[in-house]
């Protein structure tokens, strides 16, 4: 594969990753050119063998057809599977199964990268807040563009290198992140949303006793394992009852 072809595949691969904004975000990116079937078509065009591209893309697509990515849980890294697995399978004349087997070791790396990105990006959030507070609103507004650099680094370069240097390079790539460091990022990544929710609580809650509502919402999910929409319906019922039976409204209102 020529450097130029690898470059094109890496650029489109990055744009079609879950946080790539350039093709209308999730809509044209992740859910369109990010699907292995469409990726196979595009890679086939770049490498000059559309039919093989579609066939291999379809085989990988069949594996990942039910891939739903709620929040941040990533069952497998379809981005590397598509943009590294498919091109390497096409150039080596291998079967779709080969493309899938290549993507499996990359899956762990891909998931570690997701956690790395969402952890490092916290720095941009704080930068944005600083910029707003010091009146640099233009810069603050550009944070989603500037902050995408992390996603570019962890998607563009691995795809470029793997495609240009070939399958032998994939195993080297997988060993880039030592397991212990990856673990720290995953543990930290799991804990950090607590900070965001702490902030929200501070913002919305007026009275300490209202923590009970928060706790009840938590218990509904953690203990009773119901899903978010039923939990919201229960919340609506509570809000209704509170208003209906709260005598203070008629007299002084709630400030």
């Amino acid at each position, binding site marked *: 594969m020529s450097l130029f072809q690898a470059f094109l595949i890496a650029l489109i691969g990055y744009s079609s990753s879950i946080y790539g*904004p350039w093709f209308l*975000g*999730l*809509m044209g990116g992740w859910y*369109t050119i990010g*699907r292995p*079937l469409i990726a196979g*078509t595009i890679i086939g065009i770049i490498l000059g063998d559309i039919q*093989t591209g*579609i066939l291999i893309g*379809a085989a990988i697509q*069949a594996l990942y057809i*039910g891939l739903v990515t709620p929040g941040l849980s990533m069952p497998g890294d379809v981005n590397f599977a598509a943009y590294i697995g498919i091109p390497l399978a096409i150039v080596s004349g291998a079967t779709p199964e080969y493309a899938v087997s290549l993507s499996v070791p990359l899956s762990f790396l891909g998931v570690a990268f997701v956690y790395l990105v*969402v952890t490092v*990006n916290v720095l*941009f*959030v704080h930068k*944005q*807040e600083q910029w*707003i*507070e010091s009146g640099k609103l233009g810069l603050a*507004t*550009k944070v*989603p*563009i*500037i*902050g995408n650099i992390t*996603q570019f680094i962890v998607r563009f370069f691995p795809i470029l290198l793997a495609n240009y240097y070939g399958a032998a390079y994939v195993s080297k790539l997988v060993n880039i992140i030592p397991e212990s460091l990856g*673990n*720290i990022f995953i543990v*930290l990544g*799991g*804990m*950090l949303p*607590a900070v*965001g*929710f*702490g*902030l929200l*609580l501070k913002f*919305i*809650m007026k009275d300490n006793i*209202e923590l009970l509502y*928060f*706790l*009840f*919402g*938590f218990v*509904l*999910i*953690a*203990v009773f394992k119901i*899903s*978010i929409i039923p*939990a*919201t319906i229960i*919340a*609506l019922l509570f809000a209704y009852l*509170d*208003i209906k039976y709260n005598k203070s409204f008629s007299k002084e209102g709630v400030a």
Partner: protein
Amino acid sequence: MTANKLSKRDTFKVYINWIMYSLSCQNMERMEAPAFSRIMGLVADKLYDKEEDKQELLLRHAQFFNTEPLIGSIIPGIVLGMEEKKSCGEDIPDELISSIKTALMGPFAGIGDSLMAGTLVPILLSIALGLSKDTGSLAGPIFYVITYLGIMLPLTWFLFRKGYTAGINSAEMILGGGKKDLITRAANIVGLMVIGAISAQYVSANVGLGYTSGDMAISIAPVLDGIFPSLVPLLLTLLSWFLLDKKKMNIGWIFLIFIIISVACSVTGILVP
């Protein structure tokens, strides 16, 4: 009714920027907040003259926000409508806007993930696969791209516009009926419960600690789960709230504390991925 400050073109700009950048600076602490702050920043000059008001607007939306961005595009629509009314001098409390955002993000994440990502996409892909699987024909990819974008582009714009109109009208409905306190209170309660619910979903900490005594291996995690499921995530969330609200601690320090906890607990094996 006060004059509208935003043209349809402005609302389209906000919509497109939301669709593009909602996840582009996705982060564990506030998730889609940078994008929400950005789309408000794009219209800040149209809504307010004073710099302080613009700063407040952006800060208001730098708070945690996370939903499925496509079906959930109705939420930035609603918020934009409410913010426009607020900037026209209507008395809409900040916390009402925050509570409404918070109350809606969970349900729309659920609807978007299950209906769009979990139903529409797999159905369209299955049809496309049927067209291309054995032949390698272009019909499958073309079918998928046209139907998926043909449904989602108009749908997300429709939802955003509906949200925007609803946001403007709701402002009038709430204020006109003199029900502001009631609705603020209701949105607050729903918001608090939804924060609790999504904390349980998103904050995770797996306790890996255990010990072996003779043939018997005891791990701590099931014991903790027996006392209270997801106890550690709950304590972490409460800790962060306590430090922020009660100790007035700077967010940077809390971030540092969490890094130290995660390094220490990960290295010692107290917490595992």
